[in-house]
């Protein structure tokens, strides 16, 4: 039995962990409320849970002079443990030592549904924001709080510093949500001018045009999307709305024909996703998971449903929680990368790749191979991203050498492309 803190006579770690896992933050915090971080320094798990819980209860950041070693090891071990409060504590502590941890800290506050706190923290620590990554983060947080004006303001500012398809897409979706389809179309079109092959922009623009009755224009986009095999590999909720009738299935007959099991649940979930019935899909999976029909693939589909329904923290949360149960599942880890890519949280990808490397290093080699495919298709920015990840994560020294060379080559090609564009503008 472990004893800690000011209430040495009554504290039991087992009780604390059980309370924490039950989600009762208040009670868990009260068990240690009279403690000081120094009293808990013997046990990192309790210490960082306490720092996280203290913030959640009092909004008080850590400001002591405590020294903890091996922070990188702790981060690696805890990132996908599902213990979000503990990880939040670690991020708060790391942020107290180095401000570069702000974006990750903000991510975890968002994950815990503390969007207001995350916004306040960003504004407090950065009175005048010019970093597009932080502006985007603020934009997404405001969007989640349905403060559309503030979200649009952040996204507009961000586009001044860096062009980004996710931001064009987000602005168009916000205008669509506000019922202003004219501006929604404008931002999709502007985004596609800079990123003509962006799947998300194309898909959402296609759906908007379809909803506006502009069928010919919508069909043209569908034809372009078919090149990418959208709707057959992983199923996209948006494109599902404009899929031809052969994708229909008789759901009631299917349900009667097969007793419920995770395989059938998955098929039905995929069907809902394909049709774009996100509300039904979410209700259906949540109920089935409660019935015990749980699997990493089902969590992945649920996460995609949340994502396409613009419930970004729920999407991320679903995967992180499921990783707490199935920590080595590649489907979940890849889904997390998908979310981070499409939510613009690129800095979060590296730790996931590090985890994937321990499960199946062949996926790391795939980063290099896919980068080559994208480079060959002149999709330089994405190729660059993959080579960069490969260099950071791979253990293959020859491969890293080649990838570094390729990064230099791509940089020079992008420079030439930029100069050509500049000259075009001049002439």
């Amino acid at each position: 039995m472990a004893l800690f803190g000011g209430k040495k006579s009554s504290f039991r770690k087992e009780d604390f962990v059980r309370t924490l896992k039950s989600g009762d933050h208040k009670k868990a915090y009260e068990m240690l409320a009279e403690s000081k971080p120094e009293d808990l320094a013997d046990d990192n798990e309790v210490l960082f849970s306490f720092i996280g819980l203290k913030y959640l209860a009092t909004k008080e950041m850590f400001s002591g002079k405590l020294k903890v070693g091996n922070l990188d090891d702790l981060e690696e071990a805890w990132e996908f443990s599902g213990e979000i409060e503990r990880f939040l504590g670690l991020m708060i502590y790391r942020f107290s030592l180095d401000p570069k941890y702000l974006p990750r800290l903000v991510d975890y506050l968002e994950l815990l549904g503390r969007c207001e706190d995350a916004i306040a923290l960003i504004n407090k620590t950065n009175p005048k924001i010019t970093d597009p990554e932080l502006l985007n983060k603020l934009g997404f947080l405001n969007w989640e709080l349905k403060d559309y004006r503030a979200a649009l303001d952040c996204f507009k500012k961000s586009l001044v510093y860096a062009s980004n398809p996710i931001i064009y897409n987000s602005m168009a979706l916000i205008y669509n949500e506000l019922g202003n389809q004219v501006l929604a179309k404008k931002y999709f079109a502007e985004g596609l001018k800079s990123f003509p092959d962006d799947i998300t922009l194309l898909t959402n623009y296609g759906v908007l045009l379809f909803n506006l009755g502009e069928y010919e224009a919508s069909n043209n986009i569908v034809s372009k999307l078919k090149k990418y095999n959208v709707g057959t590999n992983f199923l996209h909720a948006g494109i599902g709305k404009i899929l031809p009738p052969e994708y229909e299935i008789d759901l009631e007959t299917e349900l009667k024909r097969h007793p419920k099991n995770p395989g059938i649940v998955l098929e039905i979930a995929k069907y809902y996703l394909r049709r774009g019935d996100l509300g039904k899909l979410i209700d259906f999976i949540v109920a089935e998971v409660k019935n015990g029909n749980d699997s990493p693939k089902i969590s992945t589909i649920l996460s995609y449903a949340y994502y396409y329904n613009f419930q970004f923290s729920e999407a991320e949360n679903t995967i992180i929680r499921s990783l707490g149960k199935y920590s080595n599942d590649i489907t979940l880890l890849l889904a997390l990368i998908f979310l981070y890519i499409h939510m613009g949280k690129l800095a979060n990808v590296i730790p996931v790749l590090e985890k994937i490397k321990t499960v199946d290093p062949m996926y790391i080699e795939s980063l290099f191979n896919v980068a080559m495919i994208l480079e060959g298709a002149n999709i330089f920015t994405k190729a660059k991203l993959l080579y960069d990840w490969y260099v950071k994560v791979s253990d293959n020294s020859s491969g890293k050498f080649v990838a570094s060379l390729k990064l230099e080559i791509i940089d020079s090609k992008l420079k030439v492309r930029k100069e050509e564009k500049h000259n075009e503008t001049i002439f």
Partner: protein
Amino acid sequence: MKQSSDLKKFEGFNSWSDKDIETFAKYFEEKTFKVNEIIVNEQSEGQELYLLAEGKVRVERQVMGEDQTLKILESGEIFGEMSLFDNYPRSATVRSFENSRLLLMNKTSYDKLRAEDAEVASKFLELIIQTLSMRLRQTNKNLEILSLWLI
């Protein structure tokens, strides 16, 4: 025999007996290549399999008129195995990246091995299947990574 001591260094031969390795080694010949020397040429005919005993080689391919490095192979790796079984031209150029020593087996030697020692030939085929299946698995994983942008 030098070839057999080289073969013992390859991971794929770990489970082979010394006798089988000795037998198998007889069907290989050794070649050395200086830095930048071309070992096989993209689109050329050729029916040899190579085992890289020492050094490093660079695998290149012409993409949209440019030579792109696909990979650097290190000692202990196999390449050119597909050409023993199909008649298609080489899919990439392989050039010596460092002074390198390679063991090669051509189609005639492979046919001879099959005729003279079916058991060793079948073990060798198993090794080739393992190599190809690893490459197929890698391709499947490539598709999964690629689809991160396509869903």
